[in-house]
C-alpha cells in the first residue's frame, strides 16, 4: 500500500509540474495550450535519447529536455501569438498530435511505436524498488518546490504583471509600450520548459516511453488539475494536481464498489465521472479551489 501511495505521489508531483508550466502559459499570459502533452513528450524524448544513446548524465538530460521543450515553445509562440484563443486551442491540440505521430514514424530517431526502454533512473538497480520510489519522490517534489517558488516570484515580478496585463487586454498593454509578442514568447518558453522538465523526469521514473503515452487525455487531466486548483494561482496548480490524482485513482475504488455492471461499464463510468467532475467544477467553482488573489479582471 505504501509503495502505491508513494508512486501515486510521484505521479501527482509530475502532474503538478505540468500544471505549473501550464499556469504560466495559460494562467499568466492567457494563452490556452491544449498541446501540453506534446511538450511533455518532447522533454521525455530529448532526455531519454540523450541519456541512452549519447550517454549524457541524467541531470544534463533533464536540462536538455527542458531546453528542447522551451525551444519548441518559443517557435510555437511566434507562430500562434497573433491568434485568438479559439484558434490557439486547435493549433496546440494539433501540435501535440504531430509530435506523437513523428515519434511513431521516425523510427531511426525514436525507435517508433516500440518506444525507448531501459532509460536510466537515479540509483535504479542499486537500491530496492521502494527506495528508488522514495528517492524519486524527493526529486520530483523538490522540483515542484523549486518551480513553485520561482514561478510565484515570476508571477509577482514586473514581468508577471505585464503578462497579466497582456492577458486582460492585449491592446492596452501594447499601447502602454509593452512588446506583447516578446512577452508572450517568453511566457510560452518558460511554461514549456517546466512541462518539458516534467516529461524528462517522467521518462527516467518509468524507464520507458512510447508515443502512445503522450495521448491528449493527459493534457485534459492537467487542464482539469489547473481548473480545479484555480487558474492563475501557483498554489492552485499543486492542489489541483493532487486532487486530479485523487480523482483518477479514487474512481478505481469507487467503480469497484458498484454492483451489477460489467467491467467495460465500470471503465466507462470511471472515465465519465472524471469528465463530469471537470464540468461540475467549472460550473460551481469556476475560479478554482484557490482563486488567484491578484486577479484584476473587473467583469467576469
Amino acid at each position, binding site marked *: *500500500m*505504501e*509503495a*502505491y501511495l508513494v*508512486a*501515486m505521489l510521484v*505521479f501527482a508531483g509530475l502532474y503538478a509540474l505540468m500544471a505549473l508550466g501550464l499556469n504560466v502559459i495559460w494562467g499568466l499570459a492567457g494563452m490556452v495550450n491544449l498541446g501540453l502533452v506534446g511538450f511533455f513528450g518532447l522533454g521525455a524524448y530529448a532526455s531519454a535519447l540523450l541519456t541512452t544513446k549519447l550517454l549524457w548524465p541524467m541531470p544534463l538530460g533533464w536540462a536538455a529536455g527542458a531546453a528542447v521543450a522551451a525551444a519548441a515553445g518559443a517557435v510555437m509562440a511566434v507562430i500562434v501569438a497573433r491568434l485568438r484563443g479559439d484558434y490557439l486551442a486547435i493549433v496546440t491540440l494539433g501540435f501535440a498530435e504531430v509530435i506523437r*505521430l513523428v515519434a*511513431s*514514424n521516425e*523510427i531511426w530517431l525514436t525507435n*517508433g*511505436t*516500440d*518506444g525507448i*526502454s*531501459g532509460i536510466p533512473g537515479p540509483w535504479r538497480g542499486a537500491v530496492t*524498488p521502494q527506495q528508488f520510489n522514495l528517492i524519486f519522490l524527493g526529486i520530483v517534489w523538490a522540483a515542484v518546490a523549486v518551480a513553485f517558488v520561482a514561478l510565484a516570484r515570476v508571477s509577482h515580478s514586473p514581468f508577471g504583471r505585464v503578462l497579466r496585463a497582456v492577458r486582460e487586454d492585449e491592446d492596452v498593454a501594447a499601447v502602454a509600450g509593452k512588446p506583447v509578442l516578446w512577452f508572450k514568447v517568453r511566457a510560452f518558453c518558460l511554461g514549456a520548459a517546466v512541462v518539458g522538465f516534467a516529461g524528462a523526469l517522467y521518462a527516467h521514473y*518509468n*524507464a*520507458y*516511453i*512510447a*508515443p*502512445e*503515452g503522450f*495521448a491528449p*487525455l*493527459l493534457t485534459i487531466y492537467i487542464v482539469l488539475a489547473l481548473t480545479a486548483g484555480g487558474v492563475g494561482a501557483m498554489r492552485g496548480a499543486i492542489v489541483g494536481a493532487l486532487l486530479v490524482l485523487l480523482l*483518477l*485513482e479514487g474512481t*478505481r475504488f469507487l467503480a*469497484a464498489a458498484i454492483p451489477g455492471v*460489467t*467491467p*467495460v461499464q*465500470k*471503465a*466507462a463510468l*470511471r*472515465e465519465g465521472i472524471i469528465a463530469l467532475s471537470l464540468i461540475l467544477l467549472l460550473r460551481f467553482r469556476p475560479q478554482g479551489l484557490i482563486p488567484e488573489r491578484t486577479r484584476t479582471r473587473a467583469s467576469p
Partner: protein
Amino acid sequence: MTQTRIGRRAALLGAAGGVTSFAIGGKAFGQGNPVVFGALPPLTGAGGPYGPAMLRAIQQVVEEANAAGGIRGRQIRVVAEDDQTNPDAGVRGARKLIDVDRVTALMGTWASSVTTAVAPLCWENRLPLFTVSGADSITLLPHQGFIFRTQPNSRLQISTGADFLLRQGSRRVFHMAAQSPFAQSSQDVLVEKFRAAGGQVAGYVVYERDKTAFRSEVDQIMRARVDTVFLNGYLPDVTILLRELFRAGFDGRRFTPAYAVNQNTFQTLPNEVTNGVITWQPSPDVESGAFRRLQTRFGNVEVDPYSAQTNDHAALAILAAAAAGDATGVAIRDAVRRIASGDGEKVDNVTDGLRALAAGRAINYEGASGPVDFDERGDIRGTKFRYERAENGRFALMELR
C-alpha cells in the same frame, strides 16, 4: 538445457513437497486467504474492441478453477483494472494491483507499450506478467524470466504466414501495415521470404490506424496488381480496408492475422465482403479440447486469438501455483515451464489439471491458443498455426501445421 533438467528435478521435489504440506495442512490450508491475480486488459481506447472478451476469458477460467476446489483449497480472485490502452494509465493500474491488491501474477496486457511500461514493475516486484503483446522487443527486456508471451513474436508469426502464402501459390504480395512496433520487422521477414521463393513484396504501406478513409491506399494496392494483400492491422482499420477492397473489386487473396478479422467483423460486414478472407493464428492440435471448450463458453461463436491467449494466461498461472504449492510470484514463474511443457499428463483445462496435480502427477498444459511451451526468453515455441477461411460468417479450417 542443463538448467531445464535441474528445473524439472527441483520441480518434482517441489511438487512432492507441496503435496505433503497440503496433506498436512488439510482443512486449515483450504480456508486460507484467496489467491489474487491481476488482469490489466484495455477496456477503453484503441484496444477497447478486444479487452472485454479477454477479461471474460480470464474470469471464466478462474470460476472453473474455483468450482474445482481452487488452488489447493484456496479460492482465486481476479482484480481487473483498465489500462486505457495507455502506458501511463497502465502503470498506475499495475501499481494499484501490485501494491494494494497484492496480486501475485499479472495477465492480459495488450498494447506493446503498456506491456513494456508495466514489465519493470513486475520483475522488480517479482511476479510474472502474461501478455499477448506482439512487439519483438518485449521478451528481450532484462525480465529475469518474469515475462510469458503467448503471442508469437513477429518473426515466427510472419515467417509461417509467408510460408503458407507461398504454398498457396502467392508470388506478388502487398503489405498493408498499421503503424505498430512490428510493422517494419514484419516487412523485413516478408521481403526475405518472398525473395527467397522468387516472389516479390510489390508494395509496402504503413498507415495511421485511427483514420477512417483508406481509399488512396487501396488504389495503390489495385495499381500494384498483386495476387495477395496482407492486411497487417487491427479490427477497426482492417474492417474499413476489407470494405474498400471489396468495393474496388480486388479479387486476390486477402490475408490477415486472426485478431484483425473475428466474430465482430462478421456482425459488421456483409458475408459477401468477408467471404474468402484468410486468417491465421497460433493453435493447438485439432483434437484439443481447450479451444472447443472456450468456444462453447463464449456462446458457440468464433473466439478471437487474444481471448484464447488470456484463457491460457489464467490457466497457466493457476496450474503453476497449484504445482508449486505456493502462489507467490516467484513460485509461479518457476513452475510455469514445468506445467506447460514436458512429458507430464496432457491436460487442456484447469479442472483436469488441478485434479492431476492434486494426485501428485506431472502435467503438460495444452491451451486454447496452442501448446504454450515457452523458450528461455518467455516466447512460445513449437506452436502450430491454424489457417482459416471466412465462409458465410464462420471460419472454415484450411490447414493446421
